[in-house]
């Protein structure tokens, strides 16, 4: 029994570290939803394309130094997302939600085809200057990249929390999220903040691409990380930054524990499945999530 417990604690540590990295990906989704009410089904593809661009630039074909590749990836995501907001999302403002969802699904397809077409579809690594000697804290067991990832996630989540509470832009963005019309009447350039939200989502996606890419290598499979976003945001609440952290940790924990304890009985694959079951339960009892605003319309 104590062996089980130790195993469980070890898995829990892994799960929390992974969960915080899910939070980082989900954060991009929440930023966009908060400011523009748009549902971004392409967040995973953003992560993927950022990873592909960075790994290709740092790789054999171009041989950029790592910092330059990272910077180029950042610039690419910012420019790309500004263009995206301008060309695709702005004409769709005020359309039914299904239009926006489908547009982002279309976008996901474009990115999935475009990335491999331009940069080649072979898997590539991202080599961060981080040792891969495992680190052991008492019962916990981490790889350094997990710790770095979790640390960056926490730093960015705190940073965005501060941004929304204290800065002028952050307050304006919350006003935009609350009501487009009123904030427009108060002299806020709503469209500029829409673009800002997409840019921030792009920056977060670039970080996610670097972290997940250096953990698992970069190819189109990296986009699958986007499928974890939905359980995270539903569990935590679609518009809450604290919710993203909590949801990410719950998803990471449930994945780790399910794959450790349930998989031996049912033959694998529970990892992809348990977060969705938790999500369905949450949708049934508290559709707005743990920390979301209770804006759900009763029907």
């Amino acid at each position: 029994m104590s062996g089980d417990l130790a195993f469980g604690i070890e898995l829990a540590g892994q799960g929390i570290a992974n969960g915080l990295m899910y939070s980082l990906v989900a954060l991009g989704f929440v930023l966009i939803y908060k400011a523009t009410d748009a549902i971004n089904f392409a967040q995973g593809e953003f992560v993927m394309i950022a990873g592909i661009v960075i790994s290709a630039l740092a790789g054999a074909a171009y041989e950029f130094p790592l910092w330059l590749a990272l910077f180029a990836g950042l610039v690419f995501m910012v420019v790309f997302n500004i263009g995206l907001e301008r060309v695709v999302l702005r004409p769709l403002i005020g359309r039914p939600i299904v239009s926006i969802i489908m547009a982002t699904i279309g976008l996901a397809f474009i990115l999935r085809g475009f990335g491999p077409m331009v940069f080649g579809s072979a898997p590539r690594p991202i080599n961060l200057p981080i040792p891969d000697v495992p680190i052991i804290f008492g019962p916990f067991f981490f790889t350094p990249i997990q710790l770095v990832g979790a640390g960056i996630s926490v730093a960015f989540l705190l940073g965005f929390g501060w941004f929304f509470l204290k800065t002028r832009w952050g307050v304006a963005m919350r006003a935009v999220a609350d009501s487009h019309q009123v904030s427009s009447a108060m002299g806020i350039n709503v469209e500029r903040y829409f673009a800002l939200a997409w840019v921030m989502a792009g920056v977060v996606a670039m970080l996610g691409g670097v972290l997940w890419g250096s953990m698992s290598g970069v190819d189109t499979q990296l986009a699958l990380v986007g499928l974890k976003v939905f359980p995270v945001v539903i569990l935590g609440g679609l518009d809450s930054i604290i919710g993203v952290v909590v949801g990410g940790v719950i998803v990471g924990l449930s994945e780790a524990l399910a794959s450790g304890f349930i998989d031996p009985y049912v033959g694998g694959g529970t990892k992809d499945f348990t977060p969705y079951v938790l999500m369905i339960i949450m949708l049934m009892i508290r559709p707005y999530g743990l920390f979301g605003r209770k804006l759900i319309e009763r029907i």
Partner: protein
Amino acid sequence: MLHREAGFYKTDYKSDMAMYPLPISRFSALGMLILFGVVAPVLMTEYYLTLLSLVAIAIVGALGLNILLGFTGQLSIGHAAFMSVGAYTAANLATKFDLPFLITLPAGGIVAALIGVIVGVPSLRIKGVYLAIATLAAQFIIEWIINHSPSISGGAQASIEVDRPTLLGWRLDGAVELYYFLLAVAIIAIVATQNLIRSRIGRAFVAIRDQDIAAEIIGISVFKYKLYAFAISSFYAGVTGVLYTYYLGIASYEQFQLGVSIDYLAMVIIGGLGSILGSIFGAFFITLLPIVIRLFMENVGSLFVEPDVLAQVISQLRQILFGVLIIVFLIVEPDGLNRLWINIRNYFRVWPFSY
């Protein structure tokens, strides 16, 4: 004059309720029937007939999704999961109990409809984004359950082979027989949907889509009709799954993954939401798009890319074009191909005197 639309007075209820009230619509329906029923099988080679068969299957599925999304306004990203439910139901009934096609086809639809109702229950409480994500979850959960229950999925490969369907002692073996059968099913589905939409249920669906609170107030039980919509839509999906199974000769969960759900969403949106003709256009468009791209690239593409990467480029190009088309239609023509068709028709209706 055949194309005339004025001067046909409805003097009794029967002509008022007629499905094709104008001679032009009667004749065009008949013309389409002759075109696809007689001309196409005579003129086309087997390869093109199999393509048309795939289109016919896709029409059934697209109509089902359009009932849910276009007419009732409930977004579902789990359409393919219901197809897999129908497919595995039929495959299991056919292989384990040796039941004929005429029983497994509706049985697959009914089981899918039951599952659809279960998935539809959350629509009582949630809508829009949340419903989309809930149906997405249903897609994964159904896929996982089928994949991990050997009693449903038939063992390690998660696929069950089925024999060619036999209809009243007539074995549907060749491409032509199968085509005629699928054409018949597609026509039944089209006519059934047309009648459904004109009925009390269909009008309730449209009322819920346009304003659910107003619909509730005029006495439509929103919950009941939403569940009807999920059940009917899933029934169509289940039938689609059964047809795919018999068409391919195998029930495999790989045929019904998330990408297929999105293909069907694209059919409905590119074709035109809330339009039966649109579903048909969408089914043609999305089914034939990859084939046209492949034909084009095989003939012209070797000028631009190396032949050994051609296959990869084709699949990537398909994804890019697919995404671009969805976005372009959403931005430029939200009512889809159906609206384009109406515009063309209206132009020629008064041609050459366009004022």
